[in-house]
């Protein structure tokens, strides 16, 4: 199919099409969509490996200090964690609805669902701020000010090192995600998306779902160790 279209696509297309969403180096929108989607999947693979280093560290230390990790895990508020899990699952739903609205060309609904998704993301981060401030207050931040009673202090510090590294990295991804959604909202408001061209929404959706899935793993690993 592409062979026939190929001769028509010259280097002048980008000029002819003006503000068309088709970049000059692609033959058609379908090819561009496929490239963008594959690019995001590959990026998510690198993200899996990035978090994977932390998950590997977690696995090593949890097997070295199973009791210490269980004791330390009780200091986390599993109710707040469960609440945040629910919030993120809802945000995944609204993100999926946003992608569907973009596919159907419903600009108002698209903007609404993007806004709800961002709001849910902010709720998640707000709860995270509450949790972090509790931990700071209770001297559970690793470092010189760390205080933990009992025989498992050393393992507990490792646990909280990993807790802050993993949830901190995850929260950073949430912040980036909310920023991306904000840009998409502005683009949607300017009417840049159509049923023919909604690639950025689709790709951002993949990213958002990935960040949610990471939390789905973090929650039981960090909060529910002693409750199994």
């Amino acid at each position: 199919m592409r062979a026939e279209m190929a001769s028509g696509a010259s280097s002048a297309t980008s000029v002819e099409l003006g503000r068309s969403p088709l970049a000059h180096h692609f033959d058609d929108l379908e090819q561009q969509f496929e490239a963008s989607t594959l690019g995001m999947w590959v990026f998510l693979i690198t993200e899996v490996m990035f978090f994977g280093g932390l998950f590997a560290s977690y696995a090593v230390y949890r097997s070295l200090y199973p009791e210490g990790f269980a004791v330390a895990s009780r200091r986390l508020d599993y109710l707040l964690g469960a609440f945040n899990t629910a919030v993120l699952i809802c945000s995944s739903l609204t993100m999926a609805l946003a992608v569907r609205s973009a596919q159907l060309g419903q600009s108002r609904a698209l903007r609404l669902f993007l806004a709800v998704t961002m709001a849910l993301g902010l709720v998640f981060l707000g709860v995270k701020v509450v949790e972090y401030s509790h931990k700071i207050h209770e001297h559970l931040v690793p470092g010189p000010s760390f205080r933990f009673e009992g025989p498992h202090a050393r393992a507990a510090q490792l646990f909280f090192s990993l807790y802050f590294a993993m949830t901190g990295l995850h929260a950073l991804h949430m912040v980036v995600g909310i920023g991306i959604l904000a840009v998409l909202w502005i683009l949607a408001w300017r009417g840049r998306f159509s049923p023919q061209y909604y690639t950025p929404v689709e790709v951002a959706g993949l990213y958002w779902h990935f960040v949610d899935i990471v939390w789905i793993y973090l929650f039981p690993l960090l909060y529910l160790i002693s409750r199994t």
Partner: protein
Amino acid sequence: MSTPLVELPRTSRVNYLNVSYGIRSWLFTTDHKRIALLYLASVTLFFFLGGFFAVLIRLELMTPQGDLVQSETYNRLFTMHGVIMIFFFLIPAIPAVLGNFLVPLMIGARDLAFPRLNLLSWYIYTLGGLFTLAATVFGGVDTGWTFYTPYSSTYSNSNVMLTAVGIFITGFSSILTGLNFLVTIHKMRAPGMTWFRLPLFIWAHYATSIIMILGTPVVAIAILLVGLERLFHIGIFDPKLGGDPLLFQHLFWFYSHPAVYIMILPAMGVINELITCFSRRRIFGYSFIAFSSIAIAVLGFLVWGHHMFTSGQSIYAGMVFSVLTMLVAIPSAVKVFNWTATLYKGSVSYQAPMLYALGFIGLFTIGGLTGIFLATLAVDVHVHDTYFVVAHFHYIMVGGTIMAYLGGLHYWWPKMTGKIYPEGWARFAALVIFVGFNLTFFPQFILGYLGMPRRYHVYPEEFQVLNVMSSAGASILGVGYLIPMIYFIWSLRYGPKAPENPWGAKGLEWLVPSPPPPHNFDVTPVVTGEPYDYTPESEEAHAR
């Protein structure tokens, strides 16, 4: 006569170099060819900086006493040499310069899939480089390029953070380049360019991209944890705080062993192109070479533990890693045998790029065979952390990568710049480099076997003869690297104009004018034949 490719119009006078002028047109370009040249400039800068540290190291080792620098300075010298050469030269050199320039051209695409991302990765590389340069200016870093904990995370008083941040940032440049190549190769191939019609250069970059994507994030997180540990004393790797320093080595080598293949696989890709072009023969065993690239990429992830034979990991882990490491020799040998078979009864011509390619095969074979020594558990315990290891990895990484990089640069220089370089000087330089390289590093095998440890700035007197030989070789090697630099720059101004296809080579990149137009192909080419179709006709054309 077979014409596998459509005729392309040859009237266009606008090329990617003269389409626009001024510094802004370069700093904001999204043209993969211009970005390749940006990388060429930065990579060359880092090469000579890293080389400068190497010169100081070899000067210090001329005499058994530590009379040129103090031990602490010496630690910083070899660390900066390693950090700069590995992260800022060897890893990006071929993918970022030759790969960026050639991947779209070779598969008939107008650009990489994500041109702005491509420019961003150059900026990320530059930013990371600036951090590392700042670390150099403020006194360097003394941990060795491997950043072993807990020394790097707790005890070192040098600029570990600045260097670590620089490497962390540069890692993302590598990830983005790999991502861009992978998507481009999957989605942007010209009609008829099936997977088994791809040039082997592309297969090599495909395999390299897999390693960049899967490995680099892991070293990034390991370096991030070292940084956190240094800043907040959180103790993930510090045994005093319950952590495990071996974990760092596992995370580090999980990337850094495959990183060797990030350097060598693109080099092999270049050699495929050179060998087949200058022996005028279809490459022997195309699919074996293609799959051996993938096999090296996959096996490369299973062998990291051979860096840890003496670290205190279990003896059974050591045995498994020893066997797995030897498996890498199989796909590597497949490639060498296929090149040899391609050369056999070929009408070989010894132009400069071919001399580099033949040099590569020699150096890579020596480096590969000594790798088997090191993969053998018992032998490794004897030569671990001696100059034997130093010589081995210089033969593979430096001998392999630089020979291929220079060979490729010579081969595609007419395409990249539209100019011809002086052939006689180029052959002379290839010879000087080959001689200088062997004189520098072969004595180090003997030194290591006799027991001279690496990373020491003083040594017993009986090692002096071999060390002086090595330093003398390094000075020859240094001259050898300077000569191409001079005549390449000379050729930009005074070199004769290059034709479209000065070597009579096959491949889509030779069908466009030299230098290529901004969007590569005015009409998307349609591929109908196999790659490397060197027929008797083209042999005649070559003879003329």
